[in-house]
């Protein structure tokens, strides 16, 4: 799974810019193989057995106890699947790209290599290495292929995320060196009873560092700007997958290695998460650019993930991981629909688009589906996720949980408002001549909807899998 994008990059490097079709084909095959493999690991994971499966482990740098250690368990299998889905549909979505095609796919595959690596790694060193690999190509991707205010957005995004890394490094190394084991192996580090003050310091460093990527309020400001500036598939990857890296890392590294630190900071985490949910909803209400609307709704949805993590209960974590998956697929669909509309009309202003569903019924349907999912309508995957998180949150943090629920209701309202003004007003005559989505370009969107609905109707496939690793995880806390 990790190898196929790398091989794809190597082949792409040898191709010439002129061989557009070949370039796209190679990228698609590389992404397709990853996709297939991610489905295979998701379906082939043995739930009865539990634990970490598909393990690969090689010693890497002996002097520092670094080993290459990857595996799959219930917690990361859904996220691997998510990455597979988003990269595959992302490549399909960018099929019409015309400028610097070769470089674009190289950087995109590099990014995906990093993402896969983060989700699979059980070695802290490689975890961080892949984390950085996933973050850096964003700068180039936004700068070259981006739109609105891309120079500002790219620089802001990179500096924010790198500042996060600046906090992660000391936090990570603090755990490494105070363990006395001289190993970066997370499973071994987990067994070390760190003293409470070390855990408190390390946890807050790691939480804030990774939290930047998870768009935890108040470190979210890079994210809407970045979403707006990025090209469609990058927005999809970025909001769909990259932000999950942040919250996954909080779960995998910060909470896993510093359970006492987590308990110490849980209240604080929940507070930031609740503020994020409310803030995202209300700022989103005021936006007129569709991408900004989605950007701020992501902030609030990622707040739900953080809130779920902060509860530290089985339901909460279960819901959080499920929400990561559901939100990932959903935002990918959002951005892919908006990207399609923007490519045609060159506008994302809600008022200009008014009545769009009469011009492009299919493209609008994609967007509306995503909006319904975002509003948490039953039958969609995110319904279950949000339900679980909210139930857990109200139990553990009653006030913040209720606040979040209230915000979500408002959020549903605003999603409907956007849908209403964008798609059901009087149509703008300027755009009447546009054709609707062709079946080929509709394919990636259909895949995304398929997954949303499938896991909306059969959530137990996902939840059962996640539970196999969440239950031992909670016991370890």
């Amino acid at each position, binding site marked *: 799974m990790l190898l196929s994008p790398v091989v794809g990059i190597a082949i792409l490097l040898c191709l010439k810019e002129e061989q557009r079709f070949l370039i796209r084909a190679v990228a698609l095959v590389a992404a397709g193989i990853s996709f297939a493999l991610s489905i295979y690991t998701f379906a082939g994971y043995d739930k009865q057995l539990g634990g970490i499966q598909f393990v690969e482990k090689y010693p*890497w*740098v*002996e*002097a*520092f106890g670094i080993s290459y250690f990857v595996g799959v368990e219930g917690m990361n299998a859904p996220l691997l699947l998510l990455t597979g889905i988003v990269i595959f549909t992302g490549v399909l979505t960018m099929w019409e790209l015309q400028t610097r095609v070769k470089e674009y796919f190289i950087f995109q595959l590099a990014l995906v290599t990093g993402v896969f690596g983060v989700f699979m790694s059980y070695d802290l*060193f490689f975890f*961080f*290495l892949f984390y*950085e*690999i996933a973050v*850096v190509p964003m*700068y*180039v991707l936004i*700068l*070259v292929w981006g739109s609105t205010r891309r*120079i500002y957005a790219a*620089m802001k995004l*990179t*500096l924010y995320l*790198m*500042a996060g*890394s*600046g*906090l*992660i*490094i*000391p936090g990570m*190394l*603090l755990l*490494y*060196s105070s363990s006395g084991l*001289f190993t970066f192996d997370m499973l071994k580090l987990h067994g070390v009873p760190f003293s409470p003050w070390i855990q408190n310091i390390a946890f807050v460093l790691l939480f804030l560092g990774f939290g930047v990527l998870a768009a935890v309020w108040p470190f979210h400001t890079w994210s809407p700007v970045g979403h707006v500036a990025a090209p469609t598939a990058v927005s999809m990857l970025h909001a769909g997958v990259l932000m999950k890296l942040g919250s996954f890392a909080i779960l995998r590294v910060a909470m896993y290695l510093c359970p006492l630190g987590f308990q110490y900071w849980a209240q604080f985490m929940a507070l930031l998460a609740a503020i994020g949910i409310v803030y995202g909803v209300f700022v989103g209400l005021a936006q007129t650019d569709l991408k900004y609307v989605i950007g701020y709704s992501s902030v609030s949805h990622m707040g739900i993930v953080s809130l779920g993590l902060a509860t530290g209960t089985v339901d909460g974590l279960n819901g959080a991981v499920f929400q990561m998956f559901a939100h990932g697929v959903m935002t990918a669909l959002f951005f892919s629909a908006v990207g399609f509309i923007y490519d045609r009309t060159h506008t994302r202003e809600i008022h200009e688009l008014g009545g769009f569903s009469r011009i492009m019924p299919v493209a609008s349907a994609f967007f509306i589906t995503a909006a319904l999912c975002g509003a948490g309508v039953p039958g969609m995957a995110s319904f279950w996720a949000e339900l679980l998180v909210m139930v857990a949150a109200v139990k553990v943090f009653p006030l913040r949980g209720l606040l979040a629920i209230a915000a979500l209701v408002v959020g549903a309202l605003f999603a409907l408002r956007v849908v209403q003004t964008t798609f059901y007003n009087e149509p703008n005559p300027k755009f009447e001549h546009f054709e609707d989505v062709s079946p080929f370009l509709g394919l990636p969107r259909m895949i995304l909807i398929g997954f949303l609905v499938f896991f909306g109707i059969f959530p137990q496939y996902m939840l059962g899998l996640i539970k196999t690793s969440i239950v031992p995880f909670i016991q370890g806390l």
Partner: protein
Amino acid sequence: MSVLQFGVELYYLVMALVLFFLTLRREPQAAQDHRIAFTLSTVGVVVALLCLTQQGELFFRSYRVDLFSQIFKLALALGLFLVLAISRNLPSIEERNHAEFYLFLTTCTVGMMMLVSAVELLTIYVALELSSYSLYILVPLRRGDDIDVEAGVKYLFFGAVSSCFMLFGLSYIFGATHSTYLSDIMARMPELVASPIGVVGLILAMAGFFFKLSIFPFHFWAPDVYQGGAHQVVTFIATASKAAAVALLIRLAVLGAQYGYHFTQILVFLSIISMTLGNLVAIIQKDFKRMLAYSSIAHAGYVLIGILTLQETGLASSIYYALAYLVMNFTVFMVLTQVAQDGRDLKIAELAGLYHRSPLLSMSLILGIFALAGVPPSIGFTGKLFLFTSAMNQGYFWLVLIGAVNGTLSLYFYLRVVYAAYFVDAKLPPIYLSPPMRALNYALCATILYFGVAPNSIMELARAAVRAVL
């Protein structure tokens, strides 16, 4: 055979001699000179490689040949080879001086090679001066306005002053221990723990190498010399010369291994100031070489992190980082010399459109810059992480935190270079690269990536080398 143990240095002495005869010719033949010098330096790398595993002591124990010294000799030979590889076209140096340029580069290399093997204070000093004097001559060789003279004078004065500091420090050490041999000094050092004379002496003795490495407060020469010197000379100063300085700092710093608190606290202080100052000032630079000068000050601070841990993995990390720095900094300078083929100073903005002018060069540039900025998967990232890890193992939490934050600061100005090269369009003619140049580009890119992902071999080598010193 003791003569063979001196083989690498001997080879480069002969090479210097050959080049000396070339300088005597009345009619300059620049192309031929370059061919001869380049061929000789290529053979030199092979010689250094063959001598890698030698061990022994020479000249009344004042000169030790071990893995540590041989690795650095190989690095220096490689540095000279690389610099000569981009010296085919030397527009900024007058043609009749080309032979001298090669000659002094070689004598400087000989000096530094002796430096990394020297284990006696006077030998260290003499070797250091041999390499420094060559550079004092090389810096003002540049043709054109007076900026080169300013640079030359600055370099000379700062060098002279730091030599004074160093001699003063050496005299303290000699006075306190009655010996000029490092091994004797090391044995007597524990007695000096209580007295400040040891700490002061050692820090002052290291001043000479702080100067070479451009560590605060001996960094003032760097921006002017970088800007004023010819590109090739600056490349040499910024790569090979820094590696040699790291070697000697390691040799001297282990003397203070038992000192504990005060000695390391001074180093921590210098390291923090160097990296913060370098990175902050680099942000406002417009000239590419000046920016690289400040970035080199910052990188000197990073290297010091590894040295001040004073134990095996830390020192090994420093060696790894010094070697990595040699490669990545050279890559950036190589792009610089290729873009500014007429030898002029390059503003960062003038890199505009490099992507269209030469995709290969822009790829090298982006990799080199990312490596300097510590972005994975490059040697710069791995090296930096090793340095931080070993420092954290010794409990320097704040140092690591400040270092990591500095990494973010530095990213800003590095990304500006990437931005200019990749995203600003300029209607300039494409840059032609000769086939060997293309090969060099590919080799450098591959090195940066490969050893970033698979650092184990270098790291184990560095550890073995450090064991020879401790």
